[in-house]
Structure formats: structure tokens, C-alpha cells
């Protein structure tokens, strides 16, 4: 019988303005990125967030692009997740194809060559820092 790969979990605190990447979970089926988004003083009437369907991950250990497969608690563009106050927050998750298993640096790319969007670069994932999910 084939061995089922363990699920690795990394705790992180990577911030880009009001977006926080707090946890990455990786197993043989998927790579899950958990985010917190806190609205701030920038809030204006009808503020919203969403995620572009072409969002992907790139990693130092492969030349492949790891496409977004699914998402939880966030709308995919052109739909919008609306905010109603500057104190609003959102916990959401993005799911990608499984990353290779090994030490690597990954980047989240919502828009290539743009400063806007949920882009995060060079997030270091070391196997020795990972927690293992109870099987």
C-alpha cells in the first residue's frame, strides 16, 4: 500500500499592508494558504476585496506555476467581498496545486509586474520549521 504523505503546517506572519499570511498547509492534494485581512483607517464607503482567478504560487524549487484551485471566504474577481466598517476583518483561504516537498522560497502572485494586489514574495518554508498534522 502506498504511504500517504504527511500534512505539513507552517505558522507565519507575513504582512503586506493590511493583509496577513498566517499559515500554510501542504499535503499531496493541495497547498492551503490562510490569510487574515483587517480593514483600517483607509476604509471608504463600499470598500471590497476579491482575488484574481489567475493568482498562482511560484517556488524556488520548481519552474512550474502552481495555479489557484479553490478559495474559501473570499470572492473571485469580478465578484466582491464587501466591507461595511473600518473595523471589519476577514479570514480567508486560497488553495493551490501541491507544492514540492522540501525547503524552498515561495511567492504569491495575484498580478504579475504590478504593485497592486495580494502579491507576497520570498516566503521561506523550511521542512524543519513545519508542524505535522495528526493523521
Amino acid at each position, binding site marked *: 500500500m502506498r504511504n500517504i504523505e*504527511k500534512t505539513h*503546517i507552517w505558522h507565519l506572519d507575513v504582512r503586506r499592508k493590511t493583509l496577513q499570511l498566517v499559515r500554510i498547509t501542504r499535503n499531496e492534494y493541495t497547498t*492551503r494558504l490562510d490569510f*487574515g485581512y483587517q480593514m483600517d483607517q483607509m476604509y471608504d464607503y463600499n470598500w471590497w476585496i476579491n482575488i484574481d482567478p489567475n493568482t498562482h504560487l511560484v517556488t524556488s524549487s520548481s519552474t512550474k506555476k502552481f495555479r489557484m484551485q479553490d478559495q474559501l471566504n473570499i470572492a473571485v474577481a469580478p465578484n466582491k467581498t464587501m466591507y461595511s466598517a473600518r473595523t471589519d476583518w476577514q479570514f480567508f483561504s486560497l488553495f493551490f496545486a501541491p507544492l514540492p516537498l522540501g525547503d524552498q522560497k515561495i511567492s504569491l502572485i495575484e498580478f504579475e509586474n504590478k504593485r497592486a494586489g495580494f502579491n507576497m514574495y520570498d516566503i521561506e518554508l523550511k521542512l524543519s520549521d513545519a508542524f505535522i498534522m495528526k493523521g
Partner: protein
Amino acid sequence: MPIGKNAMLRCLIIDQVISERHYYKPTMKRIIEVCKEQGIDVSSETIQKDINMMKNARPKGFGAPIKFDFQQQEYFYTEASFTINGVKLTREDASVLKESLVLIKCMLRTELGDKLRHAMEKVLSTSIEEVDFNERYPILKTMEPPRSRGYEFMDLLLECCKVGIPISFVHYSYKNEVFKPVVLHPYVVREFENRWYVFGYSETHDALRSFGLDRIYEPIKLERDFKKGNTKQILSFLNDMYGVFSLGVEEPIEVVLKADPLTTKFFNAYPIHESQVVSKSTSGSSRISLTLIPTMELIHLVWSYGPSMRISSPEWLKEKQHALKYYR
């Protein structure tokens, strides 16, 4: 025909596999694998029958909105929040509970029996909260707060406390408005004023901490050595505090409150702690002594009475309350 014990177990596994779709693909293969892990050898035909049965309306099934995604070859609920856990009591269940209640009344004349009887009576009272169709209102009403966020983690947290399994979750701080990943070795789940908290050793904070279930996101069980709790500290958390968020003091101390005559009547009728001693003056106002670990909730309680109540001692607690007032 009632659902058999084995079929019920398989249904719970199917429900669990579908609910965990973001970690493992809920395929037929996965359901059979999990059944095997639980010591149940089962064919795909039996699972298919179970799924069909789960789709049936109650009482023959669970009214489960299960669909099969042919492209992905996986099962899913069309209502993402659906689960067969949290099943309402049937007449049969209520009848069994009533029988148990009689047994408890007869056999358990201990403090535990009293507590259990009180809990069971509340459950049964709730189950007979039927509307009188002549009058269109219930003739008995218990407090029924709407289900709060985070309550869905209760089963997992209780299991982790019982077996001793550390968990990873993301915590959102209402006050600081930031998210933080936490590794917690959970010891107890506690309710306070209809809010639920998990208490344990936080690796992240290197300290004992309480976390409101409403602020916890996506708890995951970890393969990791469990750090056992100190029984004295756990009991102190359960018994020596009014609320859950201590103000840095670890041992119970004497706190004195002053109350006006009306508030004194309420405190006499509804003591807030085992240690409470009310000393009334001739005017009816009182000095209320409590021996406990001071908490945020105690300060909130005093605030809730406005000018009718104040903290008399210790001095540092008065100052803390004053500082928090300005922070608010």
C-alpha cells in the same frame, strides 16, 4: 426502520470526510480508507447505499444535500455548512433521556448527580418548549442564545482535551485587530455567560491562556508531544475566577466591592462566586467580599451596575479599572 449502529458510524465517517474536503479529496477511496482506519471493512456498494440513505428526509435519513462532482470524482454538500452532527432529539431520544433522568434522580444523590440532573432537566425543558396553539406562545422558556461562531469546534476541542492532542489554529484579537497562528495544548473548555473558551498552554505565548472559540479559525490536530497541565492551575482557572481573562494575578486574593441597597438585593439572590460574603449595613447597602483571581469580567460586572457599585479594594484593582475606563 431505525439506522443501525454500524450504518450510523459509516454515516458519521462519510460526513467527516465530506466536511474535511479542503484537506483530503472526499472520494469513495478516501471514505473506504477512513472506514478501514476505524476498523470497518466496507465495499463501495455499501457506502453508496449509505449515501443514498443519508439523502433521505428525516427520520429515514438525514436530509443530507450530497452531490457527486463527476469532474473531480468527489462528494460534496451543496450547503457548505451542512453536517449530520447536531441532530435534533427525536421523541425516542427524549424518552430515553427521561428514563435516564429518573435513574439519575434515584441513584445519584451526590453533588455530581445534582449537577447532572440540573443539566438534564434543562435539556428536557427545552425539548418540551412547544407552542400552545391556542395561545401561540410557549408556556415554558429557557434561555436560548443563538448559536455562536466557533461552537462547531466543540467536538474537536473536547476530544483534544480528553486525549491530549496539541492543536494549531489562527486566532483573531478583537482588541489588537491582528491574526496570530497559535499552537495550543488544550486542557479544558469552559463556558462563561454563554460564551465558550478553551484554556491550555500556548506554545506561542509560552504561558497558560484562554481563547474565545468565536475568535478561533480552522483548528488542526497536531502530531506532537502533549504538554500536560498542572491540575492545581487548571482547577484554579475553573474555580477561582469570575470569568476567564485574569489580570496577571495567579493566586486568589480578597476583593471588596461596595453596593447600594438595590444592588445588594441582587447579589444576595444571585451570588457571583462561592467565596462571596455580603455584610449589610443598616441602610441596606453592603460590603461584598470575594476571594478570587481578579478578571476583566469582574471589572465589566462592576461597570454594568454603574454608580450602584464600585471596587473598594485592593487599590491596584481600582487603578486598573480607572485606566481601562479611559482606554475604552
